[in-house]
């Protein structure tokens, strides 16, 4: 899942011809002022923090500037913000427009229907979660038909647009649909979509690109605005790795088993701190790398819970022993292991030789991991 910052989303919008306010991206107050001086953005303008979290307006991360002085002040203030944990590095400056109405439009996947769904609402400009379901039109779009005229007519009707404004919407929806398809997007969202005069244009742009389609879109591989450093390294090594709030590291294989392991830990009072899903592997080197990555997250203890299927227990054990051998003592952590399934006996023997006991019962081993972490929590 590649969440794109607003300005990146708008770059894509522009390449598809989606109408946008005039504007530019800057990275300092000086740049902001010179952008205005060179006419890259007319005054008065809007100054928007380029962060991924929502609620920027309320959070003081969007301001207006009528003069160069106001622009400098607003840019300085916002660039200094730490917005919901994100440092503001870029600002988007955009012309302030005479907005008649604020609307909502998005295209995303409906898993249950197994169809893309176009959602529109006349109540734009607020978080869509707060809009009543009855005020949102859902139009499922069949991939073999594409976005049709009747679907677009229904959208225009819901938005209360007719004449040139409806035609403007029509063009915009076609472009968003093409973007959704051609860029392998999970989500294309415009909130608000502004009605200005007789045309609509995208005031905001939220685009999420699907990770799995990166073989078709290498250009998005560098855009990673929402991961920690370790998560980014894990991604490159094709290991599912998520940092949480607690102190116990969990290494398991398969998302379901990993989640079940977290559930059990939590039920008995443990606090998972890292979630590492080995996936299906039979390469001991990948296991070694996973353990090294886990060590860098400095867990108080690690709970290894493997059920061998595609992954063989001896492979995991071998990789683990390899990782432990090279680990500096400062990075070592208490380890509780439970390995079951394919080549279980061989795996347990390898661990035993390295001084690690494999437990059999999930509940007991979880409790043991919590106890081990307790000393350092």
């Amino acid at each position, binding site marked *: *899942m590649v969440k794109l910052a607003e300005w990146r989303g708008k770059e894509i919008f522009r390449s598809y011809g989606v109408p946008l306010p005039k504007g530019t991206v800057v990275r300092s107050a000086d740049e902001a002022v010179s952008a205005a001086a060179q006419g890259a953005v007319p005054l008065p303008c809007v100054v928007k923090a380029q962060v991924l979290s929502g609620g920027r307006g309320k959070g003081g991360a969007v301001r207006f500037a009528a003069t160069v002085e106001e622009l400098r002040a607003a840019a300085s203030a916002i660039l200094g913000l730490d917005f919901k944990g994100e440092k503001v590095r870029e600002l988007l400056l955009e012309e302030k427009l005479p907005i008649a109405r604020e609307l909502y439009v998005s295209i995303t*996947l409906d*898993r*249950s229907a*197994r*169809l*893309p769904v176009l959602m529109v609402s006349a109540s734009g400009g607020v978080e869509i*979660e707060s809009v009543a379901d009855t005020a949102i039109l859902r139009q499922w779009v*069949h*991939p*073999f038909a594409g976005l049709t005229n009747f679907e677009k007519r229904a959208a225009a009707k819901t938005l209360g647009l007719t004449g040139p404004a409806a035609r403007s919407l029509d063009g915009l929806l076609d472009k968003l649909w093409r973007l959704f*398809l051609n860029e*392998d997007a*999970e989500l294309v969202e415009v909130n608000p979509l502004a009605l200005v005069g007789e045309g609509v244009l995208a005031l905001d742009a939220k685009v999420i690109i*699907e*990770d*799995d*389609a990166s*073989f*078709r879109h290498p250009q998005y591989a560098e855009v990673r605005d929402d991961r920690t450093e370790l998560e980014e390294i894990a991604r490159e090594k094709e290991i*599912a790795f*998520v940092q*949480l*709030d607690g102190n116990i590291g969990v290494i*398991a*294989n*398969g*998302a*379901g*088993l*990993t*989640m*079940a392991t*977290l*559930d*059990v*830990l*939590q*039920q008995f009072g443990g606090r*998972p701190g890292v*979630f590492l*899903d080995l*996936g*299906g592997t039979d390469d001991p080197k990948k296991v070694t790398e996973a353990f090294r990555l886990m060590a860098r997250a400095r867990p108080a203890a690690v709970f290894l819970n493997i*059920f*061998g*299927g*595609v*992954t063989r227990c001896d492979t995991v054990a071998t990789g683990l022993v390899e990782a432990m051998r090279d680990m500096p003592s400062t990075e070592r952590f208490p380890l509780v292991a439970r390995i*079951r*399934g*394919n080549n279980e006996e061989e795996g347990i023997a390898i661990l035993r030789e390295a001084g690690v006991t494999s437990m059999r*019962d*999930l*509940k007991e081993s979880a409790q043991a991991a919590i106890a081990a972490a307790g000393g350092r929590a």
Partner: protein
Amino acid sequence: MSVLVNAETRVLVQGITGHQGTVHTRQMQLFGTQVVAGVTPGKGGTSVEGVPVYDAVADAVAATGANATVIFVPAPYAKDALLEAVDSGLRLAVVVTEHIPFHDMLTMYHYARAHGARIIGPNCPGIAAPGQAKVGIIPNVVFRPGRVGIISRSGTLTYEIVNGIKEVGLGQSTCIGLGGDPVVGTSFVDALPLFDADPDTDLIVLVGEIGGTAEEEAAEFVKAHLSKPVVAYVAGRSAPPGKRMGHAGAIIARGRGTAESKLTALREAGAEVATFPYEIPGLVAARLKELRHR
């Protein structure tokens, strides 16, 4: 009997010459499955584990009468492989491949559906019916013939649960791993009626996880249509909202799809709900005993 596969199933392996394709061809054979053909473009005329390899699915089907396929080809080519299988007349395709873009899967799903074909997966362990056939990658060791049906969105967790059922002395009729991707060919709602109609299944174990609303829909189906008892488990109660847990399916979005909403729905539909996966075998055994004493 069994669900979707049986002793008559003649399996084609697409991507048979790859590492996974070869390993699991052997495992399917050891399970007792008739693996009749493999396909890898450009490798036609060779063989893998005694199975003849063809360049094209149509050739393989014509020569061997294959009637089901399991797809191991890499994600960028998986869509093409599935379309080829459907065009060649196959009506059951287990897609093991992971990381298939969901836009591709939308095409695959609706194309298969328009041609009356069923997809299991993608990113799934497949189907196994002990004593009959296995089309996929679930480890052979966890199985034992019996009367418990298992439908799961997970991979490894399924193996653990299936194994647990074996360890309490019970066995399985059929186990289907649906896969946890955003778009799956077969969902709980699609699979439940098959098990309900299967005379060899007495009880159904449903293993869900957070994300999406497949479990909520399953609960509705259980309530409205199902005649057999259900034991359910849902992984991910402790998952923090918004964090991705390996599966694209495991995202909690907009308050729906939480473990709590799924568990509540299943409980209200009359399913017995396990808090921990290791409780499932016990619940299953107790429920079966009860059934027998009726």
